């Protein structure tokens, strides 16, 4: 192992054989009966195709459209989210934090990569990376700037560090000029990044008006 480590540090590229080593482990676990190959494919498909940010966008657009749902989502997020069917691992205990005229929220996991899978799917690489995890708590405004947005000084920036099994979702502000839009149309304005809090929801102007 020690030789492997030295070899690895001399080269920033991942070891070229990782693909083969993973294949070898998979075959071994299948041979031992510990991994059912159908279950493995099903699980990967689930997170590749089915469980993704569209779920969170649906919840946000619904909250924008229905004030009673919005209040429910903020008061009892687990029940409100379950009512839309988005229940699963890493989303058992949710808190939804709402952006307002006075507050902007940002979510991070400085210790690892905690993220609300049932609503956003698996996290992007940057969310799990050292630069984001290091900076988000000390310089959230700087992080948001790197994503191209600027949060006004008068707004309080609240950073939520996911250190427990609670998971956080940002409820972005509904953009102005979207009166009368359907939930499907509103979903187009909700980005995954806005639900993490590194940006705000898209403006309708940027969409060229109603989609």
């Amino acid at each position, binding site marked *: 192992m020690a030789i492997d*480590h030295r070899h*690895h540090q001399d080269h*920033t590229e*991942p070891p070229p054989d990782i*693909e083969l080593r*993973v*294949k*070898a*482990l*998979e075959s*071994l*676990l299948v*041979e*031992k*009966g*510990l991994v*059912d190959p*159908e*279950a*493995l*494919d099903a*699980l*990967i498909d*689930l*997170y*590749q195709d089915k469980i993704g940010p569209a779920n969170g966008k649906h919840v946000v657009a619904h909250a924008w459209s229905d004030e009673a749902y919005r209040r429910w989502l903020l008061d009892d997020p687990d029940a409100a989210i379950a009512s839309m069917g988005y*229940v*699963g*691992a890493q989303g*058992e205990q949710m808190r939804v934090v709402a952006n307002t005229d006075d507050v902007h929220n940002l979510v991070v996991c*400085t*210790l690892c990569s905690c993220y609300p899978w*049932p609503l956003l799917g698996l996290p*992007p*690489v*940057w969310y799990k*990376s050292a*630069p*984001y*995890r*290091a*900076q988000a*708590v*000390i*310089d*959230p*405004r700087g992080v948001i700037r*790197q*994503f191209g947005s600027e949060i006004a*000084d008068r*707004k*309080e920036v*609240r*950073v939520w*560090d*996911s250190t*427990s099994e*609670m998971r956080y979702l940002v409820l972005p502000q509904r953009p102005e000029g979207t009166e009368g839009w359907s939930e499907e149309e509103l979903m187009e304005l909700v*980005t995954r990044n806005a639900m993490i809090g*590194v940006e705000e929801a898209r403006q309708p102007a940027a969409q060229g008006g109603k989609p």
Partner: protein
Amino acid sequence: MKGVHDLGGMKGFGPVQPEPESEEPVFHEEWESRVYGIVRLIGLLGLWNIDMSRHNREQLPPAEYLANSYYENWFAGIQKQLVRSGLVSEEELQTGRAATPVPEYIMERVVHAEQVLGAPYMTASYVRPAPGPARFTPGDRVRAINRHPSGHTRAPRYVRGHTGIVREHYGSQVYPDLSAQGVDEGRHLYNVRFEGRDLWGESANLNSAVYVDLWESYLEPEP
């Protein structure tokens, strides 16, 4: 453990370099998806818990932890755990050939496709009986104790010694410091607000606060 994983507030990693949201795949390489799937399915056998998995990755050599990609760390972690738990021998890992049978009680827990596809998807419960009454209530001033355990902990180093205000009591939940050692016990869990300027002094952003989830044993009352 004040390890290399405890990154909050560190400098020198350079800018965040996001791929455009619309272009980033869920997995960048096929092997990443296989590692993810294997870790989840083996994890569901229930031979270790999420805190043991985290602690395992936290104990990787620091230079390796930082140089590895995310799923390389998962791959390194799962191999260690498989051997440590006895599910796979070092020899089997080297040769890639099965040599020892798996005990029946473990085989009975092997996850099948219909279980994977049955919503709600593979949920867990983290709520545990409370060890006693909660010591703090929302609005209380608390200090994160200046403690540096050598084992697993979820109190990030940047809050230690700092004062905050309890925002919410999340009830009694499984306590990571013991859970990583295989002891499943509840402790009261709180969400605590720290002012940016209290944590970071002059380096703090204007008008900023950090909310951190902290178990009761990480906290002491602050008059």
